[in-house]
């Protein structure tokens, strides 16, 4: 693993991943029972934050025990949005689950589509035409930019920046949503990818519009960073808050920007080389502290890297069909077997585990939701911090309840 350190960070030598010295066997990653001050129960305050609390990102609840302002216990509670997506999918045809995947992480329906399509392609052995691969890459990276932009806005909203960053983020998001709408017909519930390609070709003039958006995006990022990245209050609020060590992050299966903010170089775009990512050189930014500021900054940097992929990809896109002619829309029955496919969505590793028994419906359909698993260590990150930190730590995990609850 080559990590080119651009500059020494704070003079601290950060452990590279090989230096973890694999004492995972010796290290106990289990959550320690927090010693709640004995006999001080009367002074502790038990608060249920959510599901109607203004900051908990959807119908999510944190049962928090507070000592003054300090969190001494935090239990995430969810399932309010549970609709048993997996059961529905097992009673629907393979194609019928595609629009449901839009609703998992409703910010990134295109990457969800891709993950599902990829798994089914693995299961059935379908090939994807070149042009479709390009469209997939372009839409996925646009989705990544979209998601990270919104997340930065939401995170700062949680910090009390009264909507200004959020509104700027939404202003830019609108441009990408317009692109996505003119391509797929819907702004959020795209239902665009198909097994073996994409549903339809790019409309006329789409590429030019996309090029324009991509070319103008760095301006917005600069503006956003001037507004906030150097802001003393933001730095004081986020640095050293919600720290997550690399060892725990790996062990707890944390993926996505959160993992990379902890300094672990693991990006499925590089590791699995799915799609045509190997054709484009892009860098994976790594954080050194694993705190909220790192998570925020890693997302900002990832956006810039995504734009670096998008720019040449929009130029290189070849002509050709967008869907594998062998792929059947109706009566699609993969041979019995199973497959686990995963891609790097903006939130982390989204996997689909499918078992086919030869019927038109999947026998087992499982979603590996990054949001849910990233929540595993929420308590570990919040203990000993204040309630305000818990709120922004939750914000920096980047959860979408559609995906957590399924």
């Amino acid at each position: 693993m080559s990590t080119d350190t651009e500059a020494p960070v704070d003079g601290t030598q950060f452990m590279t991943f090989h230096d973890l010295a694999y004492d995972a066997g010796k290290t106990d990653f289990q959550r320690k029972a927090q010693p709640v001050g004995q006999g001080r129960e009367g002074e502790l305050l038990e608060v249920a934050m959510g599901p109607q609390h203004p900051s908990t990102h959807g119908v999510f609840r944190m049962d928090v025990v507070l000592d003054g302002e300090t969190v001494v216990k935090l239990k995430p509670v969810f399932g309010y949005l549970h609709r048993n997506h997996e059961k529905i999918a097992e009673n629907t045809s393979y194609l019928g689950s595609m629009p449901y995947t839009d609703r998992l992480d409703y910010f990134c329906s295109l990457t969800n589509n891709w993950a599902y399509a990829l798994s089914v392609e693995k299961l059935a052995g379908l090939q994807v035409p070149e042009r479709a691969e390009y469209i997939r890459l372009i839409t996925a990276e646009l989705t990544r930019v979209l998601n990270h932009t919104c997340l930065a806005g939401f995170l700062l909203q949680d910090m009390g920046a009264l909507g200004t960053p959020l509104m700027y983020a939404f202003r830019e998001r609108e441009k990408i949503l317009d692109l996505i709408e003119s391509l797929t017909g819907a702004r959020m519930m795209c239902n665009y990818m198909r097994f073996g390609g994409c549903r339809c070709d790019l409309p006329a003039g789409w590429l030019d519009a996309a090029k324009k958006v991509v070319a103008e995006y760095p301006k917005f990022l600069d503006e956003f960073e001037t507004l906030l990245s150097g802001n003393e209050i933001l730095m004081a609020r986020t640095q050293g808050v919600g720290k997550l060590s690399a060892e725990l992050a790996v062990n707890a299966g944390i993926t996505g920007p959160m993992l990379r903010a902890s300094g672990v170089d693991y990006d499925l775009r590089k590791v699995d080389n799915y799609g045509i990512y190997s054709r484009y050189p892009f860098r994976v930014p790594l954080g050194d502290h694993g705190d909220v500021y790192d998570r925020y900054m890693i997302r900002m940097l990832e956006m810039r890297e995504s734009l670096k992929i998008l720019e040449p990809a929009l130029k290189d896109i070849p002509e050709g069909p967008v869907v594998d002619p062998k792929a059947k829309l109706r009566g699609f029955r993969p041979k019995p077997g199973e497959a686990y496919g995963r891609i790097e969505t903006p939130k982390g590793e989204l996997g689909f585990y499918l078992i086919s028994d030869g019927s038109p419906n999947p026998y087992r359909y499982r979603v590996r939701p990054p949001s849910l698993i990233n929540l595993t260590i929420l308590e570990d990150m919040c203990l000993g911090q204040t309630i305000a930190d818990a709120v922004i730590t939750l914000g920096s995990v980047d959860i979408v309840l559609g995906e957590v609850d399924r």
Partner: protein
Amino acid sequence: MTLPFAIIAGLTVGSAIAAMSLRNMVHCALSLVLTFAGLAGLYLQLNAEFVGFTQILVYVGAVSILIVFAILLTRSTEPKDEPATVTPWVGISVAVAAFLTMALAVLASPIGKRLAAPASEVSVKTLGQKLMTDYVLPLEVMALLLTAAMLGAVIIAMKDKEGSR
């Protein structure tokens, strides 16, 4: 006896009685705040503006907050059905006896009939100068006391917390 005096005095005494007799301690504290405010009103009537506003600043703004914080920090484990007082009649009779003695003394004394001289402007500047000249030693002692009290209070309240962590 003037009407404003009667109103303020009645309010003060009434809220003082409430402060000492109500069951809910937060209500007691809030009534006590009213007493403090009433006393400040009496000070104003006596042309002691500076002391009156200091009274509000210190008692209403600070001491009462301390009290309610202390009440909140020590709530919850007190059993609800326990009587709030011990041997009330002894205490009250002692207090009544004390009041009767003092009241008799006041009423008997000729000074009590005295009326105030026409109010003279009390300059804060003069008060300050007095504090820095005639009363400079007490002032310094007071400053020391306040500092010591503040440090003491912080240390007392902190120690146990660190022990339990």
